[in-house]
Structure formats: C-alpha cells, structure tokens
C-alpha cells in the first residue's frame, strides 16, 4: 500500500492512455480522479467503461483530457454531463465515438493479445464506425468472404479502479456488480486500485472464487474510504444525489466548474475531502441488500 499521491505520481505519466472503471453513477474511482486533477496529469486518451459519469466529466472539466474514447458520458436520470457536453458542442475535445460492444470486445482483444476483433454483423448499421475510423474498420471474413466490421484492441496504460475490499497485495473483491472492471484490469498495463477497506489475505483465501482481480495485476493499492463519493460504492453507500445535482448546476459553465474544482479538489487533499464528506456518506449507507461476506 502506498499513499494516493505517490501512487498517482509514480504510475500515471503525463499523456498516458487512462481508463476509469465503474459505470454510470456507481463505483467511479473518484479519489484517484481527484488526485490526478490535483497533480495536473494530462490523460492523452481517456476511456470510459462503457458508461462514464463523474469520473470522466470531472477530468474533462479540469481540461486534462486530450482525447476521449467512450460510448456514453452522462448522469442518467440526473441529466447530461455538463463538461462533456460543452466541450463536444464547442468541438474542443477529440472524441473517439464508440459503442458498448466495441468497448467490451476491444478490451477483450487488448487483454488477450488479439490483434483486432471482428464485431457481430449488424453493428455496421449505426453511424459510429463512420465517425471513428481509428477504432473501427472493415475486413473480409476469411471463412465466408463476407464484409465484417472490426475493432482495434484497447490497450490502456493505466486503469483507475475501485474495489470494495482487497488485501494489502491487491487481491480485490468487488461486492455488488463488476461492470467491466475485471476486464479492464486484464487489459491494462498498470492498475491502480482504490479500496474502501483492506482485509486480510486469509479473508480473500476463504472465498477464492469470489476474488475479482488477482494481486499480480495490481501495481498499487490505495485506501480510500468513501472514495467513490459523490458516486456510489456498491454495498457500501449509494450516490449522493444532492451533491451530484450541485455539481451539475455549478458545471453549467467553465467558471462554475472551476469553482467546483477549486473547492472540492484543488484546495483540499483527498484525506480532507473524505473527512469532510464522512457524515454525508454515512447518511448514504446502503440498506442491507444481500447476504454478504463479512465486510
């Protein structure tokens, strides 16, 4: 285990291809995202998995994303993603427009060393391949001779992931849904893991099939209790709708975004942020949904 600032400064190089885990309003690795903003690390390419929310919009708002590769950035029922929307409408961000099947299959190809990945017939009837020839192209099926849409492998350099539990080495357990996070860990050169709680290796060993990511794929483990706030951490707390609405309101323009970043990111440390939000997060604790392994 290392400090969050050491993890980010030693692993995330300026201009890296970064992928953020979690999906929609859930399991966003916000502690790591905020630390990247504090350190001003540019992400040469940012991938969402497949649906980004606060994890992508905040990095976009901080002006740290050169190129965005995504199939969705938004806040579901709460509204559109304000910084994504503004940058896209201004034409001031390069977007590699994708769909979910390509992101999943592209990560599979990246994880498995497959040089490219054919996509199911029919996907070529969206307009996505037309606007993203870098990720999508066509070839011939050597078995049938038919024209086939194919995708390039996705090979992120750094994955930012949240797990509810892990041991000190990084054997990680995602309680609740896994989204694409397991596949992201498999496809990425480096993995930084933020966790709600460290457990013993004995606890991991008692449910070996319940582990989501093995330690040897993980470069750094960072303790970040409440580190998904204002998004949810499955089995721990739900998303903070009030805070998210405040963000959506403030982020309507650049000035408000900057004010949000100053107040909640740049002028605070991650430890202070989590401390200041502890009461809110406590009030968002999930009702017990499932019979769970010991937390």
């Amino acid at each position, binding site marked *: 285990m290392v400090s969050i600032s050491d993890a980010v400064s030693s692993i995330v190089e300026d201009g890296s291809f970064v992928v953020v885990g979690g*999906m*929609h*309003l*859930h399991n966003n690795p916000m502690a790591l995202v905020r630390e990247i903003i504090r350190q001003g690390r540019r992400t040469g390419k940012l991938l969402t998995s*497949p*649906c980004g929310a606060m994890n992508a919009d905040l990095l976009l708002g901080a002006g740290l994303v050169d190129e965005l590769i*995504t*199939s*969705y*950035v*938004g806040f*579901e*029922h709460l509204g*559109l*993603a304000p910084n*994504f*929307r503004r940058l*896209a*409408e201004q*034409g001031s961000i390069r977007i590699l*427009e*994708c*769909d*979910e*099947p390509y992101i*999943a*299959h592209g990560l*599979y190809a990246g994880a498995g060393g497959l040089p490219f990945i054919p*996509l*199911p*017939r*029919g*996907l070529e*009837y*969206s*307009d*996505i391949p037309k*606007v993203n020839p870098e990720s999508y192209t066509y070839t011939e099926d050597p078995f049938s001779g038919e024209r086939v849409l194919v995708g390039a492998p996705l090979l992120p350099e750094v994955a930012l992931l949240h797990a509810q539990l892990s041991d000190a080495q990084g054997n990680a357990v995602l309680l*609740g*849904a*896994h*989204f*694409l996070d*397991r*596949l992201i860990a498999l496809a990425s050169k480096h993995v930084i893991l933020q966790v709600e709680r460290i457990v013993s290796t004995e606890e991991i060993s008692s449910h070996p099939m319940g582990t989501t990511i093995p330690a040897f794929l993980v470069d750094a483990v960072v303790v970040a209790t409440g580190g998904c706030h204002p998004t*949810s951490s*499955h*089995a721990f707390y*739900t*998303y903070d709708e009030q805070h998210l609405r405040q963000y959506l309101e403030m982020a309507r323009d650049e000035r408000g975004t900057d004010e949000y970043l100053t107040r909640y990111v740049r002028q605070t440390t991650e430890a202070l942020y989590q401390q200041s939000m502890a009461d809110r997060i406590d009030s968002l604790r*999930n*009702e017990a*949904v*499932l019979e769970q392994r010991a937390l």
Partner: protein
Amino acid sequence: MSLDQPTDWSASELMATVLAGQLRDGEVAIMGTGSAVPQASCRLAQLTHAPNFSYIAGGTCSVNPYQQPLVASSCDYRLLRAETAVPLTDVVLMEGRGDVFDIFFAGGIQIDAYGNCNLVAVGSWNHPHPRGPGSVGLPFLSRVGRILIYTMSHNRRTFVEKVDFRSGPGFLEGPASWREAGLMGGGPAMVVTPLCTMTFNPETLRMQIASLHPGVELQQVVEATGFEIEIEPPLPFTPSPSPEQLDILRAMDPNGLLR
C-alpha cells in the same frame, strides 16, 4: 403528464402497462439506461400474465430484479435484489449472439419515422447541439427479436423524419434498405409515449398511430410529431391500467418514480 383529462394514473404507469402487454411468457428482455418504465413493465408482466418472462436490468446485469423498490439508476446496487445476476461481459456476448434476447427497450434524443434511434448528436456530429450522452448498446438493435421504443418526450425535436445520427438501427431508410440489410433482428415493433402508442406499417415500415391514450386528441399527436405520421382511423384508445396493474406498480414504486 401530458394528458388533458385528470386520471388516477400517470403517463408512466400507463406506458408501463402498455409495454407489459407486449411481453410474452418465456421471452427474455434487455434494456439500457434510464429504465424505470421498462423495468416496471417487465416486473408487471411477470406478476401477471408472464411468470416465466425474464429480463436483465441495465449494467448491474441482475436477472429478474424483484424491484424492491423500483430505482432510477440502471446500475443501482438495489437491483441485485434479484433472482440472480450475470457479468456485463456475458450480456454483451448474449446481445451479440442474437438469439437470446427477444426484446430490446430503446429510446433516444431523436427517434425517426423508421424507428431509428439517436443518442449521440442533434445537428452534425462535429458540432452537435445538444450533444447526447452516447450510444452504449443501441447498435445491438440490429440483432434482437423486436424493439420496443419508449420516450417521455413526444415532441417535434424528438420525433423527426430522419435522425441526425443513427445510434441504433430501426427500419433503416425504409423497405428497400431494410430488405437489403437482411438483419437477423425483427426491427421496431412498437413505440409508446405519453400521448399514444405507435406501430409500424408493414408495407412502408413507417410509424403509424396505433392507439391514443385516454383523453388525447389525434391533432395533439400530429402536431407533436416532426414527420408525417400515418393514421388509420378509427383509432382506438389505449386501455387504461387496471386496478390490479396499478396495485402491482405502486407496490414496487414506493418512491413514486412513475408518478
């Protein structure tokens, strides 16, 4: 609420009952973001006429969530109060296989006369206004039994002659292009909005009004639709939710997401 006459049920509740009526016992359905209405419809179908109907709810990929309670986010942890759950990667495989899912619930910031859906961009893709969130799994509409489209926005911005960006294919550009494509999916089957239900003319493959919701005038629908919509009078009214259906919907929706 877009209905003119006071009713004891909401537009969302009516839409959920209409969608439930499209679901058959033994079928399997899939849906995306912002799916409280289809989720309610699926659970309603299970608890009424289709006990062996199955559905996968958004990114948690829970199978047959018990909807205790109905939630707003498609990835909410509480959706795991469910019969079971599968990994998202498996769902992407099953969507691609094409013979697993009978129903895909779709929507869009634009929906066109042929049922194509747009979640990406109004205007040009390079300079959109607004820029939508993105397509997620909508391209899989090409590989699903039938498509049920729903939207809370029945207006001329949403219902357009031709989508500016095609995220998910409906009947493409009409009969010739649809035939030529030879997709394995059956295409759009129904559209439901707060004003009416619409189906697709089997000849022209264009949207046609199938029923008006109680209290809605034909003229309202025509004016709220940005393309020339086909009409075959006399138009029936959409059946109101039954008291039993409303009891079920309200039992799963203590937070009033559908109200």
